[in-house]
């Protein structure tokens, strides 16, 4: 493939961010337009990559390699496989919808979207997107790490400047420290891997495809697997290191929450998979019981905590912990079904939670409260958002014919293959999830509109509707026709299984 499509996708947000920063601060609409144009461009390219990925050939495709620091064995080495292609698409989708719902409108009294310094907001958001794309396409461990840090840092600024005034300083600090500590611990592992791989093979490189064959000893893998996997998995929201995530989600402005829960948490899971499981497969086998334990706790406990939340956004935040727990649960099975389910769940949850946060944001922007008991009757004001949230809710409950079922079912199959008791315990979360989703739908969207909102609230904008429709479409298409994504993820899973020695 001569056309360097992956680098173009990756660097589009960076270029757009720079362009936006060049605009004068008061030209808000131009900043928004540039952002939207870049997002559409990246989305189209990522759709193109998705559909032109050759599933029969499998493996890494659209490969590009440029020397970056050859004396250290670092290169700008891009390529996607069956696991990362859907995630690139996911990033494209979330970026597009995130820009749409942050559009804002200066002329109305409704404080929807971002009115305060949209120029800087979109610039930081796009730097974040740059990092996200970079992680998903990197085949070089150093570059992966490089982009990983780039994705984490703008988060701090975005939350602390545009976040919810009550907790933003606390949440931003907590989130950033958590993630930095996690990634530093992973980095130590990465460096250790670099040295040992170099000693084993004589070639000092960060090329992950070469490191796969570095022949790490069992003892080495047993020691380093946990720091590497857990260090990245912190960003995936794994219990007991999930604590930053609901706080961060709640404090972040809407588009950032969408990015955060929709894409960034996948970044953690993806890096944990690519670096932890794929480079240290024997360590993964050795520790799989522990990861399974953590994940099972996250699934049930996360759902339970979500159940007792009174704050709408906290509820969605904790539901993410529960659903990302399913991804980790799939990882811990290390078998075909479990990994397939995890791959699908990363996409499905990304779209679903982006939708959730978008709708929560739309309501908060208008009602200025997120307390569930204070809300009500929103279906009369914003019927479109209601339908969107219900569809997201059904996905979240794992309702068949939606993407959640397609993703969760194989995860449970995989767990059955390892330890049936865990499958039974984890399944409790389905009922709890159904309980809180249905209760919230009823409380927030139906019933009577509280008096204080009477006449104050307005329907969502057309851009919001486009965003909701886009997100819903993916959840329905995958649910009705699993063939849209399953064969793609399967090719990626086969590769992982090969590294695991055909488990």
């Amino acid at each position, binding site marked *: 493939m001569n056309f360097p499509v992956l680098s173009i996708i990756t660097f589009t947000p960076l270029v757009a961010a720079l362009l936006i920063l060049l605009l004068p601060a008061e030209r808000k609409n131009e900043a928004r337009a540039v952002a939207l144009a870049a997002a559409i461009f990246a989305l189209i390219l990522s759709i193109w990559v998705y559909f032109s990925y050759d599933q029969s050939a499998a493996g890494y495709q659209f490969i590009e390699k440029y020397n970056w620091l050859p004396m250290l064995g670092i290169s700008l080495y891009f390529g996607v496989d069956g696991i990362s292609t859907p995630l690139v698409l996911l990033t494209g989708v979330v970026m597009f919808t995130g820009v749409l719902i942050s559009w804002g409108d200066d002329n109305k009294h409704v404080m929807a979207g971002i009115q305060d310094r949209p120029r800087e907001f979109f610039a930081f958001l796009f730097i974040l997107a740059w990092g996200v794309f970079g992680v998903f396409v990197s085949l070089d461990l150093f570059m992966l790490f490089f982009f990983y840090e780039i994705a984490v840092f703008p988060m701090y600024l975005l939350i602390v400047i545009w976040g919810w005034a009550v907790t933003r300083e606390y949440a931003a600090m907590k989130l950033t420290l958590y993630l930095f500590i996690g990634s530093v611990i992973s980095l130590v592992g990465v460096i250790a891997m670099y040295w040992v791989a170099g000693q084993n093979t004589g070639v000092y490189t960060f090329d992950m495809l070469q490191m796969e064959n570095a022949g790490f000893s069992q003892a080495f893998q047993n020691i380093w697997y946990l720091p590497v996997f857990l260090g990245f998995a912190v960003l995936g929201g794994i219990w007991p290191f999930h604590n930053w995530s609901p706080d961060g989600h709640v404090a972040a402005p809407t588009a950032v929450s969408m990015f955060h829960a929709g894409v960034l948490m996948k970044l953690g899971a993806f890096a944990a998979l690519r670096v932890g499981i794929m480079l240290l497969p024997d360590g993964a086998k050795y520790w799989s019981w522990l990861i399974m334990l953590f994940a099972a706790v996250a699934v049930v406990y996360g759902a339970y905590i979500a159940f007792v939340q009174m704050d709408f956004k906290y509820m969605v935040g904790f539901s993410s912990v529960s659903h990302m727990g399913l991804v980790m649960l799939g990882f811990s099975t290390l078998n075909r*079904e479990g990994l*397939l389910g995890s791959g699908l769940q990363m996409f499905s949850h990304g779209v679903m939670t982006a939708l959730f946060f978008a709708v929560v944001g739309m309501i908060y922007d208008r009602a200025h409260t997120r307390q569930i008991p204070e809300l009500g009757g929103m279906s009369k004001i914003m019927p479109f958002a209601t339908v969107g949230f219900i569809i997201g809710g*059904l996905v979240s*409950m794992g*309702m*068949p*014919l939606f993407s959640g*079922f*397609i993703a969760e*079912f*194989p995860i*449970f*199959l995989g767990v*059955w*293959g390892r330890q*049936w008791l865990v*499958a*039974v315990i984890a*399944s*409790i979360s*389905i*009922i709890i999830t*159904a*309980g809180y989703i*249905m*209760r919230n739908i*009823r409380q927030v969207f*139906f019933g009577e509109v509280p008096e204080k909102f009477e006449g104050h609230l307005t329907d969502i904008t057309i851009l919001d509707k486009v965003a909701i429709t886009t997100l819903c479409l993916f959840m329905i298409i995958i649910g009705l026709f*699993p*063939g849209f994504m*399953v*064969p793609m993820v*399967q090719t990626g899973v086969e590769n992982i299984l090969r590294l695991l020695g055909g488990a």
Partner: protein
Amino acid sequence: MNFIDAHLLSLILFVPALAAVIILFVPAGENKLFRWFALAVSLIPLVLSLIVWFRFDANQPGFQFEEAYVWYPAIGSSLHLGVDGLSLTMVLLTTLLMPLGILASFSIHDRVKPYMMLFLFLETGMLGVFLALDLLIFFVFWEVGLVPMYFLINQWGSANRNYASLKFLIYTMGGSLGLLLAIQMLGVLFGTYDLLTLYQRWNSLNPANTLLGLPVHTVKTIAFWAFAIAFAIKVPIWPFHTWLPDAHTEAPTAGSMILAGVLLKLGAYGFLRLILPLYPAEAKIFAGVLAFLATAAIVFGALASYAQTDFKRLVAYSSVNHMGFVVLGIAAAGLASGTLDANIALNGAILQMFNHGLSAAGMFFLVGVIYERTHTRNLEEFGGLFPLVPIYGGILIFTSMASLGLPGLNGFISEFLVVRGSWPILTLYTVISMLGLLFTGAYILKGIKKVLHGPLNEHWAHGEHRLTEISTREILVMVPLIGLILWIGIWPAWILNVINKAVVMLF
């Protein structure tokens, strides 16, 4: 025509859902259009299922009109559809009740568009369960049907709807959790969900082996109960029935019709399609438990029904009572599978499913008719209405008699077959259930008496509260039901022929 011939079942299944999607794109406000469109569309599956019914060859064993499409090959599930005499009867019942339910919903004025959409989605959900020959597809539709029903109750129900709808949803989802886990286990063991393959391979497991570290018979017993509880909640079998009176009472009229007419049959169908073929040994061991619970449902259902002062609740509890006979027949068949008596009992059970579908839908509709006029369901507030509404009264008495099991009407045939078949197998339980029939008579007569006879409540006789007679549209809803009730009561052979052959071949 070739296309239609080759895809009869998938057309039956997906036409309602497609129509719902079409409605989605029509702007709201065209209430009349939505009503007539939904009614017209719901006639298509009815016509198609009649075509299938007449083309169906009852003498041929196995499934007919089979279709299979790739759906989720990665886990071994495909969209495999097919009918035999058992499922065809249920498909016919569903496609028949659906247009009637929609016609009955013409009195809905609030948000007609989403209402009709949900109703059509509900039809696809229920038909999918009856048509599926793939365990995962069965589960998919089993769950999907819950969502439209939840919203129908939650949005268009009466006062206590929030409680009732959530209870309905959580109960059923909780029940199907075990089912889901058991299905997952079967999938992991065999790598396929195809029912025909599973029948064979699951039953040929060597009982001496171990599965997942447990002896095979232990696993099978647990899986049996996982299936049985899911279906028992749906039927519902006492003591899992408590969601039913709430859901039925709070649902809008057409919702109750479909809930009682079809949704309860899903549970009984699960027993027949999955539990008896997959767990013959366990069904035999636990037949006594099932029979006990069925008898309890019959007796307690009838007693509870008698105690109600709410007309709709009275009818709701009668469902518990009537579905008890279905379960009694199933229990008898489980205990003495393959014998003539068991087959008679099964014939009765399946026919009872069909019959209860007709009479319960009719009863709920009639309750709805009077509720729409009086806005009360309290039996104490009625009384002596017969002279005011003679036609309504006549229809109500007729339908009640069908429900009571009067000879010459459909309920008698099926209940007689059940007790005739289970008498030699489960004598004691059968005797007790027949005594339960006495209470059935009592509560039905009580209902009629409180509404139609006795001193006239003057409130309904004059002025603005003057009770109006049943309308032509409402009579039209009842006509097909009345016709079938009579037809099956007088000459049941046409339907029993299909059912009996299916039973003989299946069990």
